[in-house]
């Protein structure tokens, strides 16, 4: 057996793969954050709560309406997206002219309220959500026993991440969006409804969080705290990738997943902090983040 740093090779490959799977969640969540920050200049602290909502909505759909996993994968982001539109229209849109800090405080408050409401209604232990029949079971990869569902998560996350990147960087809609963030009055003068564009962008970012929430539901217990467990790491990912950089957050998300996975093999106690250590180093060396553009 090949040994790498005193760890059997197959075990290490397994851990790399697991790191990628966790990275998929980081990538999807930080992608939504990056889109919202890039376009709206709002640091959306409510992202974790909306991720949790995505998971809960799929649980509610299943238990009250009998709607299964795959329809929920579309319905839940849609419903949470609509909730996002309401949030943006009624509350968040009032803060665009103020400092970032206000947006951060507001969305942080919102996340506490949303989590509190769910905790009140469903308790803190969580709700069971089964892996869909079609994706249950596991495949023996030789070096590791790979649950099919995890494979599906990586594939779905990759597809969603790449399509988001393509839409924003390569389509005319994306070009309008980017132009609107650069110079809103000018774009408005061309007859584009900029406020509506911004609302839809927020809804889109939120829907990404909800999509990740549905993917996470069968792996983690669906509970009100599931978002806040993720959100700190995800913010670190966005900062390391470069605030507002779409590709940056995707690549950093997967990359940090791997770094964290390897830490779990060599020194598990540090696995929660390693991401922040990387963040400190990156900020010291490249204050704009790995993929951030210079001002």
């Amino acid at each position, binding site marked *: 057996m090949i040994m790498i740093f005193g760890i059997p090779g197959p075990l290490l490959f397994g851990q790399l793969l697991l790191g990628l799977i*966790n990275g998929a969640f980081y990538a999807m969540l930080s992608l939504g954050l990056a889109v919202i920050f890039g376009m709206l200049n709002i640091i959306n602290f409510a992202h974790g709560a909306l991720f949790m909502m995505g998971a809960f909505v799929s649980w509610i759909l299943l238990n009250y309406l009998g709607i299964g996993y795959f329809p929920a994968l579309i319905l839940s982001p849609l419903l949470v997206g609509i909730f996002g539109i309401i949030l943006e229209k009624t509350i968040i849109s009032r803060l665009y002219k103020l400092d970032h800090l206000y947006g951060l405080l507001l969305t942080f408050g919102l996340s506490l309220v949303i989590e*509190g409401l769910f905790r009140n209604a469903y*308790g803190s232990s969580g709700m069971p959500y089964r892996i869909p029949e079609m994706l249950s079971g596991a495949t023996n990869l030789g070096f*590791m026993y790979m649950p099919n569902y995890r494979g599906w998560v990586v594939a779905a996350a990759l597809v969603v991440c790449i399509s988001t990147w393509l839409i924003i960087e390569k389509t005319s809609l994306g070009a309008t969006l980017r132009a609107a963030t650069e110079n809103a009055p000018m774009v408005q003068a061309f007859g584009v409804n900029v406020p509506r564009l911004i609302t839809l962008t927020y809804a889109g970012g939120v829907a990404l969080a909800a999509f990740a929430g549905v993917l996470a539901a069968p792996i*983690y*217990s669906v*509970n009100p705290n599931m978002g806040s467990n993720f959100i700190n790491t995800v913010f670190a990912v966005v900062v390391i990738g470069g605030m507002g950089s779409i590709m940056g957050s995707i690549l950093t998300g997967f990359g940090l997943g791997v770094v964290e996975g390897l830490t779990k093999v060599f020194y598990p106690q540090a696995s929660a*902090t390693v991401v922040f250590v990387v963040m400190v180093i990156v900020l010291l060396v490249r204050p704009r983040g790995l993929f951030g553009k210079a001002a």
Partner: protein
Amino acid sequence: MLLSRRSALTSAAVAATLPLVRPARAQKPKLKIGVLNDQSGPYANTGGATSVVCTKQALEDFGVATKGMDVEVISADHQNKPDLAVSIARQWFDRDGVDMLLDVPTSSVALALQSVVREKNKVFLNSGAASSALTGEQCSPNFVHWTYDTFMLAKSTGGAMVKAGGDSWYFLTADYAFGKQLQGDTSALVKAAGGKVLGAAQYPFPGTTDFSSFLVQAQASGAKVLGLANAGGDTVNSIKQANEFGLNNSMKVAALLMFISDVHALGLDVAHGLNLTESFYWDMNEKTRAFTKRVLPKTPTNYPNMDHAGCYSATLHYLKACADMGIAEAKKDGVATVNRMKAMPVEDDCFGKSKIREDGRNLVTSYLFEVKKPSESKGPWDYYKLVATTPGDEAFRPMADGHCGFIKA
């Protein structure tokens, strides 16, 4: 009589001034119980609001009103942070006149409070925390450990596993006081029974949600048993993911601390077949069912577990002791109150009969359960099958092995 709005307002205004002119009367001594636990985090269902409900039920069942006693229950959220808990407790003792501190899950928090309660000479009845150090090296004459501890869990669940042939273990441990103590107590037991501990992964608590890395390491270790030295949502996630990675095909999972709410969160299709230990189950006998029926309307989505039942039982016994020695006396001296509690036999609907040992260990009976298959469960929260019963005087660590400081050898 018809009452016009104006006259109603006038009489209300007059009534409001009344207490001001009432003659001052001698203050009746009032007992104050402070329930301090996690009300919003990972342990909010295992303790939380249901603990408060059960504490108030004890007041009702004891009949404080008819006995003319004045008792108040207050509560706060310690968020599993020792520093926060210590400052709340100091405020409670110094400003609010709290006499007894109750529940307090999360071992790190309970250990931090031990010295505060001793310094203020109050009473600390702990139901929620697990660490056996609380009646061992960190013991206190102001303290009673009511419901369970890491040693009892290790002996009951761990012992059953070893007996069934699980002689090599790998631990998945929450990296703080509780997890380490539970791993330590279980390792000692496994080794004493001739088994081996092949390794352990200590993960950061709180904030770890993905255990797959550790589970794969556990699988690679070749151990027969995966010992989960964690609790609450962490246990739920690790069992769920162990199932996903097919660990249950190659090794047995021992959930060393698991409450009925965790089983509920997992669902029977994943949880069935697991062995776990509690000292209370709502469907154990007539009396436990009657107790559950009394509290359930006030906590309809969360059935009481042993932590909740412990809050009830501890409060009831505390009230008995206070009534026996007089409230004024009880308020003055925490050690004397605890000594009185130790001298009196404990009996209630939840745990039946037990007694409190000199070092503060309440010797309740411990039960080893197996989680039912979905087909065996007949109603809501019908989850457990009784496998084995360990009487209180055998379930816990012998007093001499605890090295409790205040006991004269």
